[in-house]
């Protein structure tokens, strides 16, 4: 107890003393040196534990007054007061920070919608065959939920309550379980929409839109690396993460589908269609079968709709340069994100999809008679039919314009190849689509897809420039309200709590901004910035050396300080140096975001570990949790190196979108 205090106080004393020793004596001190002294003092003052916003405000005021007094003593007080109030007002009317309360509000609402339990269960079943499935499901759940809410503490606590017992019961090692939960819970800090990137954007003057576009793939990459690590561990050392037994994997079927799968086969599509027209379905009402069929066909319908939209876009007869950009994008997003994005349209199109059903079964009847193997062309046919139908409908809608503009562009070969791949993927999907999988799909529909759709919709509108981050955040909050209402969790109590928490969190972040903007103004007035600039330049470093130095400094600062403090106080010092080394502030921001995320997992200050300890069984020690976090921290460092080696991971998307 006493030891820590003396250790801490001696570190502080060391910083102050070394500041005085390294700087010239008081009499010869210039303003710039005072600036450096101020920087050393503020680190000490923050470590003393006083609310940082007011430490910065008070210290900034004092040093601003000193700076002004050295120029003109008679005006110093007035100038200081002016500076303070102007800085405050500029934070109050900052058009970047305004999205912070909105995203925070959205996060609290989604957290209270209580999706996490369903999400975890459905993820667990969906990944049942993957080695280390529970840990994989944990990481995915954490990543999605943390992204949507952005509240590390709540996510780690909730997963500690849900996933930790499940993993321990399944015989997972404590370390691996704890590591998966803490590492996954911290992903929300990086994957947009995250508050950290807004704070960085506001401090560094980098467009938040670009930061979001840039952080998307590094975030996904990090989550993927975690999953890969867990799968490898589970494969190599099965005693740390034993696979699920067969009976645990069984999904109980509701009576309706149970009956159908008994009388027909286990494959959803053939047996449902068979049940629809056959005579053996006496026990089950047709409406029920149609409903199941509708759900089963949702992926197909959404894929068909999406390809229709893409087809229509790329064959748009208007300016040719637009066409090329869209083709590149279209080809790229074709494969993976489609599954997720398509659910976007599936949500909206549901009523229409029900209508479509009547025509679709007809299309399927012929191949049904021939057997499952011939389904592929049918899928392709219906897909293309849908796309051309959509296209021709649009064309018919505006005949006058078509006459002026001329013929549609022919769809490029790449599109047809991609279409073929998608059709084949759909075929494989339906070939393995059993009734158990249909149940899992339904569970995902109720937990995973709403969240994924919301995140992607918010991000998509920002990244594709349809709405500003502020607008998207507001719509996201509204979406959060609707989501909470849809899950019957929205009442006055929940609303009130979310509103009050939002006020407190935004006040915390924004007052910190008030303090730091006064502080950094004083720092600039004293000329501390120039002193640092000349010093760093005199070291004659290569860009790589500078980059490594900067990241190491930020990493070290991550121990005593919080990420908010590091960004608002130290980024203004690093950012002006970047042009000298030809480093893109956007790229730097992505590295910093990854780096600060590592700080969340670095013992002994990692908050995530303490949250998890708070809800774990007494026998789980803090050291076990820390030990579990270490491999994941190593993965993060690896991810930083990867991003540094291949900047395209982060910069590709912003470059494609905002040339």
């Amino acid at each position, binding site marked *: 107890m006493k030891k820590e205090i003396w250790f801490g106080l001696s570190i502080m004393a060391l910083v102050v003393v070394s500041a005085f020793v390294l700087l010239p004596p008081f009499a010869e001190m210039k303003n710039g040196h005072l600036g450096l002294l101020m920087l050393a003092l503020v680190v000490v003052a923050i470590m003393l534990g006083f609310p940082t916003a007011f430490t910065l405000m008070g210290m900034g005021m004092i040093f601003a007054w000193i700076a002004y007094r050295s120029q003109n003593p008679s005006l110093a007080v007035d100038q200081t007061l002016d500076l*303070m109030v102007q800085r405050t007002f500029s934070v109050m*009317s900052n058009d970047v920070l305004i999205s912070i309360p909105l995203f925070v509000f959205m996060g609290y609402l989604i957290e209270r919608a209580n999706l996490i339990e369903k999400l975890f269960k459905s993820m667990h079943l969906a990944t049942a065959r993957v080695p280390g499935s529970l840990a994989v499901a944990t990481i995915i759940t954490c990543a999605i939920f943390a992204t949507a809410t952005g509240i590390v503490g709540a996510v780690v606590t909730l997963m500690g309550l849900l996933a930790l017992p499940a993993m321990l019961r399944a015989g997972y090692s404590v370390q691996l379980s704890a590591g998966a939960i803490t590492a996954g819970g911290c992903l929300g800090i990086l994957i947009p929409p995250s508050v950290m990137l807004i704070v960085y954007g506001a401090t560094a003057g980098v467009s938040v839109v670009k930061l979001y576009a840039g952080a998307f793939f590094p975030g996904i990459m990090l989550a993927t690396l975690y999953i890969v690590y867990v799968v490898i561990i589970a494969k190599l050392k099965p005693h740390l993460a034993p696979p699920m037994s067969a009976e645990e994997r069984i999904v109980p079927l509701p009576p309706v589908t149970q009956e159908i799968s008994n009388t027909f086969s286990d494959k959803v599509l053939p047996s449902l269609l068979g049940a629809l027209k056959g005579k053996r379905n006496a026990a089950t009402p047709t409406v029920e079968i149609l409903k199941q069929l509708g759900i089963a066909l949702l992926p197909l319908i959404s894929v068909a709709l999406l390809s229709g939209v893409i087809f229509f876009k790329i064959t748009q007869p208007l300016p040719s340069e637009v066409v090329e950009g869209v083709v590149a994008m279209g080809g790229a997003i074709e494969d993976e994100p489609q599954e997720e994005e398509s659910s976007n349209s599936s949500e909206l199109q549901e009523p229409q999809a029900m209508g479509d059903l009547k025509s679709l079964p007809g299309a399927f009847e012929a191949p049904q008679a021939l057997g499952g193997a011939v389904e592929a062309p049918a899928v392709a046919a219906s897909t293309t039919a849908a796309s051309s139908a959509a296209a021709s409908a649009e064309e018919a809608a505006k005949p006058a314009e078509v006459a002026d503009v001329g013929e549609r562009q022919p769809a490029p070969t790449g599109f047809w190849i991609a279409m073929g791949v998608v059709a084949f993927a759909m075929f494989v999907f339906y070939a393995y689509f059993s009734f158990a999988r249909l149940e899992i799909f339904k569970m995902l529909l109720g937990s995973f897809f709403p969240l994924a759709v919301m995140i992607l919709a918010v991000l998509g509108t920002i990244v594709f420039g349809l709405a500003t981050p502020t607008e998207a955040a507001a719509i996201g909050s509204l979406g959060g309200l609707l989501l909470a209402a849809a899950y019957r969790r929205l009442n006055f109590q929940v609303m009130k709590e979310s509103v009050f928490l939002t*006020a407190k969190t935004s006040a915390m972040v924004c007052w910190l901004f008030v303090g730091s903007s006064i502080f950094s103004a004083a720092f600039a007035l004293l000329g501390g910035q120039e002193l640092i600039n000349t010093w760093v330049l005199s070291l004659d470093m290569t860009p790589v050396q500078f980059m490594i130095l900067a990241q190491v400094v930020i990493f070290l600062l991550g121990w005593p300080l919080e990420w*908010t403090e590091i960004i608002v106080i130290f980024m203004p010092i690093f950012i002006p140096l970047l042009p000298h080394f030809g480093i893109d502030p956007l790229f730097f921001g992505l590295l910093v975001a990854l780096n600060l995320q590592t700080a969340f997992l670095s013992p002994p200050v990692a908050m995530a570990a303490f949250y998890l300890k708070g809800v774990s069984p007494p026998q789980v020690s803090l050291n076990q949790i820390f030990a579990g976090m270490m491999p994941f921290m190593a993965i993060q460092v690896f991810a930083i190196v990867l991003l540094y080696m291949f900047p395209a991971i982060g910069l590709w998307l912003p470059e494609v979108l905002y040339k």
Partner: protein
Amino acid sequence: MQNILLTIDKISTWVGQLFAWLIFSLTLMISWEVFSRYVLNHPHPWAFDVMSMMYGTLFMMAGAYTLSKNGHVRGDVLYGFFPPRLQAGLDLLLYLVFFIPGVVAMAWAGFHYAGDSWAIREYSNVTADGPPVYPFKTVIPIAGGLLLLQGLVEIVRCVICLQQGEWPSRIEDVEEVDVEKLKEMVNVKDSDIAKLDRYVVAGQGVQK
């Protein structure tokens, strides 16, 4: 004494919570504006100004509320290890050195800043034909005053803590991570958690 402190706490809380509802109206307003612009094709030029005014008022007025709930971020690496008396002593010192001068200066400067704005009936120049700005600027001295009042309460708390060796109580408020509530939300009981211990112990046995 404790009554006075709690009364001021209540005032800060009440004001902060009142203005907290701005987030709700901000959400609705921006959503409506987006709808109006993209669907009805009818943007409102004043929307941008009103948005930032709502946001600015929201966080400024919540400053004292947050302080009263001890919600402003602290560098708590060491602070958490300090005994209460040392915490109180350091806090007291820094309240007097940083907080009081800083907030007094801000409120004072804000008072004149807003006064100038009232005198010329200033209108926003961010957009053409902008809304009046002077009520918004008035927020600075009001928020500063409230914060100062709450700061004085915190100073008294530090003194009480120095005398008694422990921190006086605060009014409870909604917490970001309320473990009990979260447990209730996902239906986990303490006894369930305790039962898990045997798995932990068993797991260790296997590894060794």
